[in-house]
């Protein structure tokens, strides 16, 4: 077993992992701690949603879940640096699907240079021009 930093869209959690030629494997406790999904008899569950895991080849082995297979199950992109002991799982496709369906502008909370946080939702009631730029 090795220690792995699992980044859930950048949010880090340290989990125990088995790393071999077939990939990265973490147990149910690690999946719940890092990603908020819980392994139950009916499948992988979070809130009111359960995704069946039975019958998915290569996903489960001896009580552990294959991390890349898990990311695919959740429709989320995956990147891993074995030599650095860190893996990253990106946002789910459902987020964009929801935006297209509802046309609700995704809320966000970000700091200004002074460290004060601002949210898009604070400006409900006014038109907002959101302009994204960079020094590059």
């Amino acid at each position: 077993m090795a220690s792995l930093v699992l980044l859930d869209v950048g949010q880090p959690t340290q989990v125990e992992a088995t790393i071999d030629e077939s990939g990265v494997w973490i147990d149910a406790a690690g999946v719940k701690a890092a990603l908020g999904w819980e392994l139950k008899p009916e499948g992988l569950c979070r809130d009111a949603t359960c995704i069946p895991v039975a019958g998915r080849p290569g996903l489960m082995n001896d009580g552990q879940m294959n991390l890349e297979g898990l990311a695919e199950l959740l429709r989320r992109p995956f990147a891993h640096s074995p030599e650095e002991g860190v893996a990253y799982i990106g946002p789910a496709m459902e987020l964009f699907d929801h935006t297209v369906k509802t046309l609700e502008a995704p809320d966000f909370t970000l700091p200004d240079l002074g460290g004060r946080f601002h949210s898009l939702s604070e400006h409900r009631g006014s038109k907002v021009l959101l302009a994204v730029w960079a020094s590059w």
Partner: protein
Amino acid sequence: MITVAVDRADDARSWIERANPTHPSLIDEHHRLGELYNMVNVPTVVWIDETGRITRPNDVAFTTEKGGRYANVSTDEQMALLRNWVRGQLPPPSDDEIRQRMAPLSDESRVARAHFGLGWWLHQAGRQDAAQHQFQIGGELAPDDFMIRRGAMPLRGSDPFGPEFVEMVTDWLALGHTYYLPLPVE
């Protein structure tokens, strides 16, 4: 108006201080907006109405004609359209019209951004060689996703307007690429 720099604070600081804005001018060093709004380059603008609804999705817009020429858009026309919208003189587009203008990120971009996120974490942890390796992987996976290729340049110590950028844009334009097709000005 809300402006967001997909930058480290120190990279954006001089620009913000010189502009001295009276609107919220925010820092998004993790490129969250790029993921939330499927943005692939900057500058990108989104119009959001009083109910929090997208009324004009990701579009390329500049405040100067010089910048506009780069992306083949008319800054004057865009600014006129924007003023009409602010004044309530623009008929709202239909939901279908808005949706037709919203494109998901490619699978390659999504995976490339996972590598960028990994690289960003390694960069913050001081593991620069490992970070650069992840930025390179991301850039190779999705060469048209400038959030990755150009966004990584300051993190790599590369001048985002230097020879590497010029070569990258020259090759990109030669292939006939655009990052968004400018939305109609109507």
